[in-house]
């Protein structure tokens, strides 16, 4: 009997895994929240919006190639768009919801390719309308044909702030300032890493050229310390951090803007893996709380695999290669064949460059002390830094007890916007490491009572 495999997430890793597993004869179900395949990086807009593209040619070619390969086998896959995976149990029983019905899926193997979300740090005014994630601003541009702001300030680490700056400029927007926390050039000193990451480097240089031609003011080492405005953003104040991560007095710059787009890194969507009981680890530079995995994507839970950025932050090219390898393992065990050996060596090449990039995601400890006592850390429940400090002082130093005493992380987003900040603050104020703080709880996504009540009879892939 053919092996059954349920994959969660239709981004580069999930699509590549599905294509590979189907070619090996597995019965594949692919669960995805979005209406169309692509995940975040290869996100596709509504077909009626023939969006103009501002991305690098190389990235667009990779996107087109993967989507075409997926379309060619989609008929052989039980592909379920608009479907939310909200719970996973150690028996590999996966619960999914569509609208107001749910279903429990059982299979021989589950592969999580759940990707990442963006991260920011709390600072006064950061909940003002107009302060957004940089990737969110990019999503509006790339799939909605909407300029997310007319006068933007873009800040953060890694490569995304540069990419979004270039794309906003190409779309006709004005960028008043780009504030990279670390100079990206730092990753460029390692020539052998550059060569191994040449595809990405070439695309990065194209974006850098667009930004240089527009003479955007560059405020390297500056971070936002205040967003001004109430019903809409009117200005952002940025200030320089010194080598120790402390704000340098007298370096404040107030810049009028209607968009402050931020990306201070990425967090892995690891909730389902944690809920299934997979052993977890913490690596702030690779996505925060991550499932332990080997190079074939196997976790500590039998039959549970993870692939792509949600398993460790390494970018879209690696995610696709990784998905293919892990999809092969999930479908056919150790009989991988020579083609997969080639994919593994390609993955090794790209990893060298991703490793060099990783340092550009390091956040200085001081960045968590820019919030004031009246700054909301948990946006959903408006739990302030002052409330959290009282909670820590009362001895609440696990995520569960902080949640119960303060309500941080108890709102709509399920803590996915704030728990990394709560953990960083608990480390500063209470000496607990993020590993010690971690306490996974269902559910991974909000789901209605109606969907829980209307559970369809258990099926399998």
């Amino acid at each position, binding site marked *: 009997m053919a092996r059954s495999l349920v994959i969660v997430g239709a981004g580069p890793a999930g699509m590549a895994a599905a294509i590979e597993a189907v070619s090996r004869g597995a019965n594949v179900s692919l669960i995805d*929240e979005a209406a169309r395949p692509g995940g*975040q990086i290869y996100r596709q*807009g*509504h*077909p*009626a*919006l*023939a969006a103009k593209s501002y991305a690098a040619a190389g990235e667009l070619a990779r996107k087109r190639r993967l989507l075409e390969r997926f379309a060619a086998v989609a008929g052989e896959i039980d592909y379920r768009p608009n479907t939310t995976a909200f719970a996973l149990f150690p028996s590999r029983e996966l619960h999914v919801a569509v609208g107001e019905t749910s279903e429990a899926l059982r299979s021989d193997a589950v592969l999580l390719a759940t990707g990442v*979300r*963006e991260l920011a740090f709390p600072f006064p005014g950061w*909940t*003002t*309308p*107009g*302060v*957004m*994630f940089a*990737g*969110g*601003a990019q*999503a*509006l541009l790339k799939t*909605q*044909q*909407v*300029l*997310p702001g007319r006068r933007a300030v873009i800040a953060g680490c890694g490569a995304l702030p540069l990419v979004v700056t270039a794309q906003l400029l190409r779309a006709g927007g004005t960028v008043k300032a780009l504030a990279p926390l670390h100079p990206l050039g730092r990753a460029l000193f390692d020539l052998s890493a550059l060569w191994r990451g040449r595809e990405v480097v070439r695309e990065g240089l194209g974006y850098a050229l667009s930004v240089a031609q527009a003479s955007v003011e560059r405020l390297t080492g500056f971070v936002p310390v205040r967003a001004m405005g*109430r*019903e*809409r*953003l009117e200005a952002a104040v940025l200030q320089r951090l010194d080598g120790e991560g402390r704000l340098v007095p007298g370096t404040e710059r107030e810049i009028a803007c*209607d968009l402050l787009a931020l990306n201070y890194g990425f967090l892995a969507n690891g909730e389902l893996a944690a809920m299934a009981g997979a052993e977890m680890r913490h690596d702030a530079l690779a996505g925060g709380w991550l499932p332990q995995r080997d190079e074939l994507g196997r976790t500590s839970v039998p039959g549970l695999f993870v692939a792509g950025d949600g398993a460790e932050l390494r970018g879209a090219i690696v995610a696709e290669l990784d998905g293919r390898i892990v999809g092969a393992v999930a479908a056919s065990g150790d009989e991988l064949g020579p083609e997969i050996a080639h994919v593994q060596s390609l993955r090794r090449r790209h990893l060298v460059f991703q490793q060099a990039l990783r340092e550009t995601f390091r956040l200085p400890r001081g960045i968590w002390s820019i919030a004031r006592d009246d700054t*909301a850390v948990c*946006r*959903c429940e*408006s739990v302030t830094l002052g409330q959290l400090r009282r909670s820590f002082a009362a001895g609440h130093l696990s995520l569960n007890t902080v949640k119960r005493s303060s309500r941080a992380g108890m*709102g*709509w*987003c399920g803590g*996915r*916007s704030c728990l990394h900040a709560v953990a960083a603050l608990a480390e500063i104020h209470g000496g607990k490491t993020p590993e010690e703080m971690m306490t996974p709880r269902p559910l991974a996504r*909000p789901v209605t009572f109606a969907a829980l009540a209307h559970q369809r009879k258990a099926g399998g892939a």
Partner: protein
Amino acid sequence: MATSFEFSFEGRAVAAKEGQSVAAALIAAGERWLRTDEAGNPKGAVCAIGFCWECRLNVDGVPDSRACMTEARPGMVVRRQEGLL
């Protein structure tokens, strides 16, 4: 070419293109303030991909609809959510 239509936001007509999200159409129309939270603070779209739930508003009487995940439709009645409603 996408067809254009209108929906209502806080009683005003807002233009949208077929396939656009409510959040995208509102931002294009210069509307940033989508909700007032329980503490009384104006809130807008943040992640634009569905995970943060900051942009939830009332669509045709249904509260907690995410503006970034809801496709705009002609004649839709959209209101800012005030607190829980």
